[in-house]
Structures are given as C-alpha cells and as structure tokens.
C-alpha cells in the first residue's frame, strides 16, 4: 500500500507541480494568474494522443508537435485574454478573460475530441507495477523541466531578461528590454511546460477533456501553498499534494479524499497566507 501511495502520489504530484510552474511562468512576466494552465496540460494529453495514436506519428515527432501546439495556444492566450486587461490589473479582469479562454478551450476539446477519455499510447514500454512508466515518467519530466528552467534563468540572456521583467517590469523596460516580446515568449514557454505535464502524464490521466478543469484546480493548490511566483515552492507543494491526496484516497477514499485535501489547503493558508515558501511582500506607502 505504501509503495502504491508513493508511486501514484509522486506521479500525480509531479503533474500538479508542472501545472503550478505553468501558472508561475505566465504570472512572472504579466502579473496575471491565467486560468488556462490546466487546459494547456489537458491539451498536452489530447494533442499527444492525437498525433501519436490517431495520426500514427513517431513518439518524438508527436511530442514536439504537441509542444508547438501548446506554445501556440499559450501565445493566443496572451493576445486575447491577457494583453487587453493588463492596463487594469487592479480590477482583476484577467480572472474573467482567462477563465473564458479556458472554457472555450475545454468546450472545443469536448466537441472536437469527444467527451469520453481516449487512450494514450505507451511511450517507452518500460516497467510494470509500481515501477510502471506511467508513474515515473511525470516525475522524470518534472525534474528535467526544473533543470531546464534553472539553466534558462541562470545561464542564458533570455532567461535573465525574464527574471528582470518578473523582478521589476518598469525598470526592465527602462533598460530597454523588449517587455512585450518577452511576455509573449513566457506564455509560449508556459504552453510548453503545460504540454510536457499533459504528455508525460497522459498514460496516467488519459486524453480526456475534463482533465483541464481538474488540473486547473489541483495545479493552483501548489502555487498557493508554495507562494505565488515561487517555482521551488510549487514543486514541493505539488509533490506534497499528490502524496497527501493519494494517502487520503487509501485511508478515507472517494469524495472524502478531496474534502481532506482542501481542508489541509485551507488550514495551511490560514497559518501561512503568503504560502509556505513565499515571503511577505513589502508594500510602498
């Protein structure tokens, strides 16, 4: 039982963590919580199944095409749901605009792809039982994504420009950084991370349109737990959420496990409103 909790818990936790990182990536350059993060992950599974299973493409080609498609959806989100509301961030209109885009993505997926879960192919064919690839693949994907992001942010000029925009938008623009282009690039990057989450978790979650709403929700929890904009917090929060959720599934089962998850979530936020890893932000007065 313990092995099963750890295997399935880490796998789903890694997917939640990646969705959390997707939220953060979009937030860092725009200060917008885009509720399309879960839908991008859902599309990762749907596109992956479509390219590799329905169209019969090789896994690598299907994976790359999936990432391209998710990146395009990320860019579209920036154009139609984020850019128009940036001037009035204090009114939180982005909640409405990004939720609207998320709903559109979900409905189009339901109509074009179908409302029943569709199979997702075995990608490598390695492992069985608790060592099945459907459990370790999301964890490996999560680890590689984090390594890639660390490299991007610490070793590349573009990554440092992202950090500069995230740190102080006005100062970065004053230095001549192309803020708009960097924001578009960050939404494309978020689309890619969401696509990786959905593709690597496809064997576990299947290619199912309803995964979008689920991942939107469970992906938001690690962001809130770990602190907004904090990727390390999102990773720790996501993995902890997955493990706790799976343990609750075993111990109390069914719908009560969701109740347990959100009870803990509320308790943590009451104790640490800024998130477990987020520092209290200074406010200029």
């Amino acid at each position: 039982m313990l092995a099963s909790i750890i295997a399935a818990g880490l796998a789903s936790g890694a997917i939640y963590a990646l969705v959390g990182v997707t939220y953060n990536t979009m937030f860092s350059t725009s200060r917008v919580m885009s509720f399309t993060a879960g839908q991008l992950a859902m599309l990762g599974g749907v596109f992956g199944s479509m390219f590799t299973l329905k169209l019969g493409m090789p896994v690598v080609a299907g994976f790359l095409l999936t990432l391209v498609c998710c990146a395009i959806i990320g860019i579209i989100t920036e154009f139609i749901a984020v850019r128009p509301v940036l001037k009035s961030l204090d009114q939180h209109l982005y909640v409405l605009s990004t939720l609207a885009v998320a709903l559109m993505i979900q409905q189009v997926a339901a109509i074009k792809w179908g409302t029943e879960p569709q199979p997702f192919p075995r990608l490598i064919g390695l492992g069985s039982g608790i060592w099945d690839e459907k459990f370790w693949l999301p964890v490996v994907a999560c680890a590689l994504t984090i390594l890639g992001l660390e490299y991007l942010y610490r070793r590349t000029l573009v990554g440092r420009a992202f950090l500069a925009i995230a740190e102080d938008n006005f100062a970065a623009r004053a230095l001549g950084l192309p803020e708009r282009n960097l924001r578009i690039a960050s939404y494309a990057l978020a689309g890619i991370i969401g696509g990786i989450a959905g593709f690597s978790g496809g064997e576990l979650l299947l290619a199912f349109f309803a995964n979008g709403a689920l991942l939107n929700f469970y992906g938001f929890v690690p962001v809130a737990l770990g602190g907004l904009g904090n990727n390390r917090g999102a990773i720790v929060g996501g993995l902890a959420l997955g493990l706790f959720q799976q343990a609750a599934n075993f111990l109390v089962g069914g719908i009560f496990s969701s109740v347990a998850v959100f009870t803990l979530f509320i308790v943590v936020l009451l104790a640490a409103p800024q998130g477990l890893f987020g520092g209290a932000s200074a406010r200029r007065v």
Partner: protein
Amino acid sequence: MVISRRGVLFGSAGALGAASFSFPAPAIAGSEPIRIGCLAAITGPASAPTQGFNRGVNFAVDAINGAGGVKGRKIELVMRDTQGDPSKAVNATQELISQQKVHAIWGPLNSGEALATTPIMARAKIPNIHPCVVETLIDTSKFPNAFRMAPSNSQWDDAVRNYCLNILKVRKLAVIGDTTGYGVTAVGASVAAFKKDGAEVVYQANIDATQPDMTPDMLRMKNAGTEAIVVWTVSTGMEALMFNVRAAMNWDVPFVGHPSLSSGEIAGLVEKPENWKKVYAIGYKSCSYDGSGKLPPRSEELVARLTKGNIALNDTLLWWVAGGIDVIELFAKAIEVSGSTDAQGIIAHLNTLNKYPGYFGDYTFTPAQHNGYPTDEVVMSEASTAKNGTFALAPGYS
C-alpha cells in the same frame, strides 16, 4: 341584349348569394402527411444514440411510405437537433407543437432533456414516446401523453440484482458509481434494493471519475470480501482503469452493471484485451446472441431486412436501430387503428397495447402504466463481445 337595372340587381344578388354558400372543403385532413416530430441530439457529444435511432426511424418511415403510407397518408419526419442541450430541446418542442403542428413526438433521447420537455408536451397533450431512463418521466396522472419504450432505471437495477443474486449467486457486493447526480442516485437506489433482497453490501462508494488511480478503492473492495462489483457510471475511463487495476491485483471478481461497461471505447483503454473479460453489462434479449451466435428469430429477420436495406450496424447498437423502427410503427399503428391523427385517439390506442410485438421488445401499456418495456427482456451481456451492435448473452441464462 338589353341590360336593365333590375337584371343587374338580380344578377348581383344571385352572385352574392352563391358566394355565401361554402363549397365542400377538399378532404385535406384525409390525405395530408402524418407529421412526426423528432427531438434528437444529432450533433454534439451525446449524438451516438441518435445516429442509431435515426437509422431505424428513417428505415421505418421509408418502408411505410414505400408501401403506400398509413391509409394513404405519408409519414413526414420533422427532425430537430437538440445538441443534448435541455434549453434547445425546450425551444424545439415548442416550435414542433405550435408552428410545425406535429401529430406526435419521438424523443428527446436523454433524460436531462426529457425532464425539461415532458411537462411542455403534457400541457399540449401531444402523444410522446421516449427511451429515457429516469423514473419520474413516467407518471400517468401528470403526463398521460408520455410513454416509455425502453427500460427505466429500476428495471436496469432489477436485472443487475437478479443476475448477481440468482445467476452468479453472490451475496457480498460492492456498489460503486461516479460523483455525478446520476451516479449518486443510482448507487443509493441499488444499495437499498440489494439490502432489501437480503444481500450484504460490503462496500459502497461514489468515486471521482477523473481519479487517476483506482487502486485504493479496488483494494478496499477486495479487503471487504467483495464477490461482485456493481457499477453505475457512464465514465468509460473510470471503468477501464478499474479493469486494469483488477488485472494488476490478480483478482477475478466480476463487474456487473451499466451498459457503458460494454462501450467500444473501453477496448482502447484497457491495457490487455483480457482485462475486459468477466465484465457483464446490461443488454437486451432481443439484441443478444446465444452460444451458437444466433439472435432471436425476430431479430434475425430484422438484421436481414436492415442488411438488405444497406443499414450499417457495425458502428452502432442494434437496440437503438430496432427501437427507432418500433416507435414509428407504434405511431403508425395507432393512427391506423384510431382512424385519425387526433392526439386522444393515438394515446387511447397506445393504452390498449398488450405485448405488442416490436423488434426491440414486446410493449405493454395501460392507462395506469406507461413503462412499456418488459423487465424480463433486460439481461446481462458479455461486455467485450460486440458484434454488429449485438452482444453475447452473459453466462447463466438458459
């Protein structure tokens, strides 16, 4: 000829007098087409049953019209696409009744829509036949015009219970469903009925259909000593995940329940084809083949007719097609016997049917009972044995 003032006056008076007499009306009512309204989700995610039912409906209409119609009157279908949306179904119902002036309505084909449209049709007293399973849709005092030609939820429940207790002879059951309104209601009703019959429900749960791992619930069911798992959900993903976990656990417990257990989509979702064995889904005697691969004689005759008419059965269910044919024939017979398209006449005739031999089943309606499908025709099928819309009868039936 001299035209006098008197002549003009007489002539005008005569013309006016003649004009005031009505000419005999042409016998329009006797030759006008019989208009049957169809409420069906032709597009959208819930369109699969419609595709099947429509093949039957169109086949029957073509056959009747090809043979000269009903007492010389052709049947005309007025089809409306509800897209599975209750609000669209309501609008279409009102249009069919008030503008299209249909004589009877077939559908809608899912309970969500029917819950919204049935009271509207009752107010208009329009004869209505539908296949929706929710119990409350049939109430002869509130909806004396509404007839059900397919089993209700409780008839499904009876068939599942009968199979578990009397054929599989198991006493310890796990009853599970999804977390939708349907899942919660169906599990509650099923548990109560099993307990009433003296069975022991050792595990009861509503599981989130998007839960990625079903191991926890399956493990709890096994530890509770479950001898059969009764499933009430339409989520094929959840079902396939449970079949895969059962195989991984080396557990040979049977699954019994909702027709979706036999959905073709499961074939792609199970890790191995054998994971789908020992799964018994609700089916119908008329659409189940025996050990020698033979359907009941009436169904064999239907399949031969459909094959001759180039009606495809490989991507749908036979009961949908057979049900579609039956509905049109029921309406046609009612109009033929009652002699008109008068709503009261059609309803009165339907109320007299006693084991009327349709292709899908033998229908019986009385003024006090509009659940027309016989419970003993509801049987269990081997879920993974689909063949041209039919299934193998589950083991244990004679």
